[in-house]
Each structure stands twice: as C-alpha cells, then as structure tokens.
C-alpha cells in the first residue's frame, strides 16, 4: 500500500496500545490481533481523509480547551481591565490587540479571549451532560420498541411522536424559563450544589447562581433529545433483527434480553457513534442558540450569551464581540461534523472499501 506520512504515527499508536494491553493481560494480543489490525486500517483510512483529520483536530481542540481552557486563560473570566487599570477610555470595547487584550474587550472591559476559553468549558459540560442521558433513554426505548414490536412499539413510538411533533426549540425554551427559578432556588439552598456546580463549570462560587439558566437548558434538552435517538435506534434494531444471526440465537434458546444486549446493541453501536459525533455540534449550537434567545446571563462567559450581549455594541463598531464567539461556535460545530462524516465512512465496512488508497 502506498505510504502516507501519518501512517507511521498510526502504527506507533497501535503498537502502543498493544504494549500497554499486553502488560495488563499477556494473552490479550493473541486474542485481539485481528481487532487491532482493523483499528490500524481505520486509522489508515482516516489518514486519507483530509477533512476528517481537520475535523478530528478541531473536535479534539474543543475538548482540550474545554478541559484546560480555564487554566491557560490569561485572565479569569470576570477579570476587567477597567477595574484593574482604571483606564476606562482605553479598555471600553477595546479592539483586538489593545494593550494585552489579544481578542479585545467587551463593554465591561473584560478580556474576550479569556471569556471564550472559559466558555468552552461550559459548552463541553453541556454536551457531556445532555448527550449521555438523552442517548441512554433513547437507546433503551428504541431497543424495546424495535425488538418487541406490537403494543410495546405502539406505546413507545406514539409518545415519541408526541415529543417530536412539538417544535423542540420552543419546548426547550418554555421548559427553560419554567425551570430556571427552581434550579436557582435549589443552588442557593444547597452549599454542596453550589461548590459542585462552580467546580464543574470553572466558575467562582459567587457566580454559581447565574449558571441556573444553563442547567435549565440541560434539563430541557434531556427531554427533547431522546425521541430522535429512540426513533433512530428502533429503526436500526428492526434492521438488525432481520439478521439471520438473531434467529440463530433464538434457535439456540437465548432470552430476548440477552439477544438485545449481546447481539443487537453491539451491532448498532457503530452507526450510533457516528450519529452521536454529528450530534455534538447540534448540542453546542442549540445550547448557544437557547442562551442567546434567553437573553444571556451577562456574568457567565457562555458563548451564546457573549454573542447576544455583544450584538448590542455592533453599532459601536465592536465587530469582535460577534465574530470571535461566532467563530468559536462555528469551529467547534464544524469540527465535530467533519469528524462525524469521516467516521461514518470509516466505520462502515462498505464505504471504507470504496475509499481509494493511492
């Protein structure tokens, strides 16, 4: 096979996995040699997809900044040049490059770069809380509906239809405004919740209350996110159920639960993973959109809120307050989408075969 500069890196990565796993279990390599070989081929296929690589870099960049952003930020999210230096004229809506503010400042003289780096953490946490819960509910209901069919299917899918028939964004908006006060109340009354929330979102405990709208958005998204997965998983389950190996398992006397979790679920994980990857961008986008629509908490460095807040100062020529947060959202969403698209081609053996290796 013609070489690719990245192939050697892939080889090194694969042999690293092999070495680590062999240390854990000496027989691992013998039993998983073929799986390892397949992983290597998948990496090779990824190496030949420039958009996939770009997507992977952007997506991993998002995760990296989400985790370490608050530590590498030059300032805290609420640091204000005006308060620190007293130079109001210089730092009120300072354009990028002004005296240490690389991406400029907002109307309170806060460092935009630091705000965006802290904002990545919030987006990451939202994704990490919304997707697993939404997907788990969807997968379980979809599996049950698809596998058992009949009345179970009818019941589950009609509920799903009701949820899908509601415009998701409006439902989430309504839920968010209804929940915000309750959540703020809960945070205010539970000191441990305050410290937990502020630690997770990398905020000062005094700002914990202001994250309540974002938490409300998360809860609202749980409710609107699962129906899509339920429908998707039901379809994939029906497809897998038609496979002869499911009937073979029935002929062996396996129980339905075993068949669902040992034969059907593992076989839909691939496409599910692709869908999830593509969905990360959606969550980021919808969350930013919701916090934009909700008016935006001025004290929280949340991407959507920064755009909302900054849009008021476009008349003052402060384009950077729109462009840079917009760019952050765009790159994160684009990265996950590109990566998801490449993953789709790589995980499906049929499309992987049609990638030309030259």
């Amino acid at each position: 096979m013609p070489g690719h500069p990245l192939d050697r890196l892939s080889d090194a990565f694969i042999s690293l996995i092999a070495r680590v796993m062999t240390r854990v279990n000496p027989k691992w390599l013998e039993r998983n040699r073929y799986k390892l070989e397949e992983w290597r081929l998948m990496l090779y296929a990824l190496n030949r997809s420039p958009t996939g690589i770009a997507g992977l870099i952007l997506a991993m960049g998002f995760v990296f900044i989400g985790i370490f952003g608050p530590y590498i930020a030059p300032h805290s999210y609420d640091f204000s040049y005006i308060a620190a230096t007293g130079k109001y004229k210089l730092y009120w809506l300072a354009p990028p490059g002004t005296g240490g503010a690389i991406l400029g400042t907002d109307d309170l003289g806060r460092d935009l770069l630091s705000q965006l780096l802290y904002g990545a953490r919030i987006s990451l946490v939202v994704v990490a809380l919304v997707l697993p819960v939404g997907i788990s509910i969807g997968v379980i209901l979809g599996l049950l509906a698809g596998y058992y069919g009949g009345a179970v299917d009818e019941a589950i899918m009609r509920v799903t239809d009701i949820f899908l028939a509601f415009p998701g964004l409006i439902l989430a908006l309504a839920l968010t405004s209804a929940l915000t006060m309750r959540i703020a109340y809960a945070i205010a009354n539970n000191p441990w919740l305050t410290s937990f929330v502020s630690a997770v979102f990398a905020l000062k405990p005094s700002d914990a209350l202001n994250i309540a709208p974002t938490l409300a958005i998360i809860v609202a998204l749980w409710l609107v996110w699962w129906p899509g997965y339920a429908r998707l998983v039901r379809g994939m389950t029906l497809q897998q159920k038609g496979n002869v190996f499911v009937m073979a398992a029935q002929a062996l006397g396996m129980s339905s639960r075993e068949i669902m979790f040992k034969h059907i679920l593992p076989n839909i994980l691939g496409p599910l993973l692709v869908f999830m990857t593509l969905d990360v961008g959606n969550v980021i986008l919808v969350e930013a959109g919701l916090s934009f629509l909700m008016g935006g908490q001025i004290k929280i460095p949340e991407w959507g809120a920064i755009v909302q807040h900054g849009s008021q100062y476009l008349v003052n020529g402060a384009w950077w307050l729109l462009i840079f947060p917009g760019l952050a959202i765009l790159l994160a969403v684009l990265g996950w989408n590109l990566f998801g698209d490449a993953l789709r081609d790589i995980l499906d053996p049929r499309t992987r075969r049609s990638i030309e290796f030259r």
Partner: protein
Amino acid sequence: MPALIQVENLKKYFPVGGKLLVKQWVKAVDGVSFEIYEGETLGLVGESGCGKSTTARLLLRLEEPTDGKVLFEGKNIYKLRGRELKEFRRKANIVFQDPYTSLDPRMTVFDIIMEPIRVHKIDVGDPEQYVLKLLYEVGLNESHMYRYPHEFSGGQRQRIAIARVLALRPKFIVLDEPTSALDVSVQAQILNLLKDLQKKYNLTYLFISHNLAVVRYMSHRIAVMYLGKIVEIGDAEEIFESPLHPYTRALISLIPVPDPFQARKRKKLMIQGEPPNPINPPPGCRFHPRCPFAKDRCKKEEPKLIEYSKGHYVACWLYS
C-alpha cells in the same frame, strides 16, 4: 427405523394487508404431513415461495403454526415449556443459507461457538480445548479461534456455523440451503463434511434446497413442495429415476446439466409461467394452470397424497 419427527397437517398462514384493508392470508404452508426417520436426510425441494423455509422454521418452533402439530421424539413441540423447550432447543437446530449474516460480526469464532454452551450452561471442561476440538471437527484449526467472521471465506463461515450447532451435540439439524451462497468448489467440501458428520454422530437432517442436483447427492428421501403443499414424496433415487408428478418431472428435466452432450439430447418438459401468488392459490390442484397434462377434474378437485408404490406418494389425478 423409528420416526424422529412426525409432522401432522401443519399449517401456517401469514396475514397481509393493513388494519383498514380486509385481512387476507398468505397460505405459506397449507396442511403438510410427513415424517423424518432417525439418521436419514429428508430433502425438501421446491421453488421460491413454496413454503419450504417456513416449514423448516415451524419444525424448530421458530414460528408458531396456525394449525397442526409436530412430534419430536413423540412429544408435540408446540406444547413444550421451560426446561423441556430448552432441551428441545439443544437437540434440534439449524444451519442457515447465508453464512455472511448468520454469524454476529462483532464476535470472535471462540465466542460464537461457546455461545450455545453458555446459554445452556453445559459443563465442557476447558472451553478452549472444547472449541478447538469442534474446530478440528469441521476442518478449521487453532489459528482461527480468535478471528472475526469477516476474515473468513463463505465456506469457512459455514464451517463455523456448523461447529456452533455441533457444540450442543444435537440429534436433528435443519440445513436451510446451506451451500447455495457458496462457490461450487467449496460447496462439495461442505456437503461432504455434512455427510461425514451425519455418519459419525447419527444425525438426522432436513435438507432444504432449490438445487436438485445437490438434493439428490445429499438425501435419502425427497419431498417436493408446490405452493404450500407436498406434491410428491419418496425415495431419492426413485424420485429422480421415475418421478411421477408433472411438476417433479418438469423440475428434474429443466435443471441445467453440466455436460453439453447430455444437454443437447435431453428432452425438456417446459412448464409455462411462474408459481402463482399464495394469497389466492388456484382451485383444485394448485399446479393445474401450469400443468401440460391438466384435465377438467384438476381444476375442480384437489388430489390427495396417495401411495403409488411402496413409500412413494404423489398427489396427482394422473395416478388415481
């Protein structure tokens, strides 16, 4: 020879049409009776849609019948519950046509073969040794143990499927077109393997195929199905040397013969058209619209399966 399996007036109708439409029934299997003796291979032949695969699934209780019963070792399998049903699942199993979809692509060969053992909680000592023994038995070896199905050719996959079934030491195996997805050079390997295993373990086979040459090679007795009914059943050699039913005669005369000299000499009994829709089968003898010998009586009355010569039954008005 005692009958291991007795099928009595087995019927399976599938509903078609939605809730709003008038419900119609596809009579996939419409009253078939036969028995399978211990240690023999019964070949079941017929064209697509004749109900042979449905019959096979009914025999293993992978479908519930509309009517009729199947006695396995004297017990009606549709009445089995709990432990008895599990015991039946151990003794009777199936090898499917398509080795590309009958094995879970996410499992290694070891896991695939061990799965039935785990399900039935059978103590086999060292699992690796047990799987290895089975692999040798079907002509594979230890280097195949931890591979995934997609790394194997069709023939090898079918060997894995056979090993999975053998793991439970069954008595009865349904072979549902086990070689029709395979290449000819490999087909003969699998057929010979199945024959050897039958001799070694006194297995009873129901061999389903549309390829009559293969059925002749494999079977002791043959049953011919047409539109959900058995039209002829008898000793394999007799069916091929002196077929009775016009449908059987046509089928046998129409198989392409791998010999150009014979192909030129052979007389063909062409039949027109294609098998009709099993929703509304023709009245009388179901074959009459395509039959070159159809008489008035065939259009009105349905012929019964009668014993024409010893052990050779036919359902056709020509023989009554």
